[in-house]
């Protein structure tokens, strides 16, 4: 085994409640397990277990590469707890932490397993939704918003808080290789709009949709001539 200083890494895992990797200490499998555990640890927000800002940006840039060539629609939602400062000021930071945990749980409960929920800042969150058609964007974002609104947070025995979120969203530009910061900026603009229009609401950037009705599609494909091509 090469001479590696691993005591700090192991201490970090122990503190985070992650068991030491299996296998013989110093073996390649054990070291790989250690690296994997550290990668996982550095990708997550310690309070909520959601993806942190770093892994969120990695996921976002991967998504950009995918939609640039596939043309598939992908939605980015950015969310912010309304009047969160008041929660901290009135009920203390412990209550604030409980609210954040509860919101993340509500977000994770309302999206698909393939979607990525991230905590990107203090009371700021983001959700990356691959393969999400523009027609469904509003409904998905509304579902998330309603779920948070209807989930009271128990911050002390007998004391429940109701919190709301504002949601902004933008679709990845199809067939275009954009950059993560541009996509985030567009979603942020919509979040700003949601905030200034009174909070506890969803604002999505209008998406350019190729408007082809089912009748038109039927006429395009359902003729013997086109069946001939297939």
């Amino acid at each position, binding site marked *: 085994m090469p001479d590696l200083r691993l005591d700090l890494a192991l201490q970090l895992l122990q503190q985070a409640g992650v068991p030491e990797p299996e296998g013989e200490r110093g073996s390649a499998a054990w070291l790989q397990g250690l690296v994997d555990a550290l990668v996982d640890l550095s990708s997550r927000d310690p309070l909520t277990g959601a993806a942190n800002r770093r892994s969120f940006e990695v996921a976002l840039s991967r998504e950009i590469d995918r939609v640039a060539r596939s043309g598939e629609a992908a939605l980015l939602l950015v969310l912010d707890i309304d009047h969160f400062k008041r929660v901290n000021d009135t009920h203390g930071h412990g209550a604030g932490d409980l609210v954040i945990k509860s919101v993340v749980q509500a977000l994770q409960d309302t999206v698909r397993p393939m979607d990525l929920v991230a905590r990107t800042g203090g009371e700021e969150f983001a959700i990356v939704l691959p393969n999400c058609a523009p027609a469904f964007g509003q409904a998905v974002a509304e579902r998330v918003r309603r779920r948070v609104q209807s989930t009271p947070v128990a911050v002390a025995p007998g004391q429940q808080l109701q919190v709301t979120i504002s949601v902004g969203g933008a679709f990845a*530009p*199809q*067939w275009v290789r*954009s950059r993560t910061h541009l996509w985030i900026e567009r979603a942020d603009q919509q979040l700003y709009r949601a905030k200034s229009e009174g909070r506890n609401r969803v604002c999505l950037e209008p998406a350019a949709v190729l408007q082809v009705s089912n009748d038109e599609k039927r*006429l*395009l494909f359902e003729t013997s*001539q*086109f069946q*001939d091509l297939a």
Partner: protein
Amino acid sequence: MSDGTLEASRAAARKVTAITSGKGGVGKTFLAANLAAALARQGQRVLVLDADLGLANLDVVLNLFPKVTLHEVFAGKCKLEEAIVAAPGGFSVLLAGSGMVEYSRMTPELRDQLRDVLNQVAPRFDQVLLDTGAGISDVVLYTVSLAHRVIVVATPEPTSLTDAYATIKVLATTQQRRRISLVVNQARRPGDGRVVRQQLQQVVDRYVSPGLDSPIQIDLLGELPNDSAVRDAVLRRQLLVETLPGAPAAVAVGQLATRLIDA
């Protein structure tokens, strides 16, 4: 402006052809590069402007790695002249540069810059091809609006056909386009192009033209056969019309070029 220069700019506009497609990956850039080479072989002075501002990849197809692109021109870092480079195949290219991601959205400045660039370069060439991005983003639509003629590239498959139809519809309703040239790529058998044109025309006649002052005419400019030589050339980053001029797809591109000159 004297009458003479007005005439010149009109004449210039007549040979600007936008190549677009609703769907990506249908061979738009392959067509632009090989059509340019085929036109050059027929004695035309040709410029390809890679207007695929968000996902420019003509440089990859042509194996060119210029230091100076439209991006630097627009940023004021160099002159337009320096960005016009000679491509293998005997034509000139003006590349957007993949660094122009900021332009995935159209700004008033970008509109003016693109139009000015085109006005400056068009008089020096017989044919200008605008290789646009896929989709119907405002960048694509604006670039197409700068061209006299528009070629929509489609393949005989449902997704491509749907997106080609949607593109034609948008061009007809937002730009008063009444003539669209269609190129059907990856035709699996002779006549696929005619079938695809007929399908598109039929739906356009039924659902789009009735709302317009005059009907839309879709012209089949040509069909390119599904040819394994195309894939090989793309992988080797070579121009098919240069390396295998006898290949069926290369011959078809040559015929397209002739029709474009005569049109």
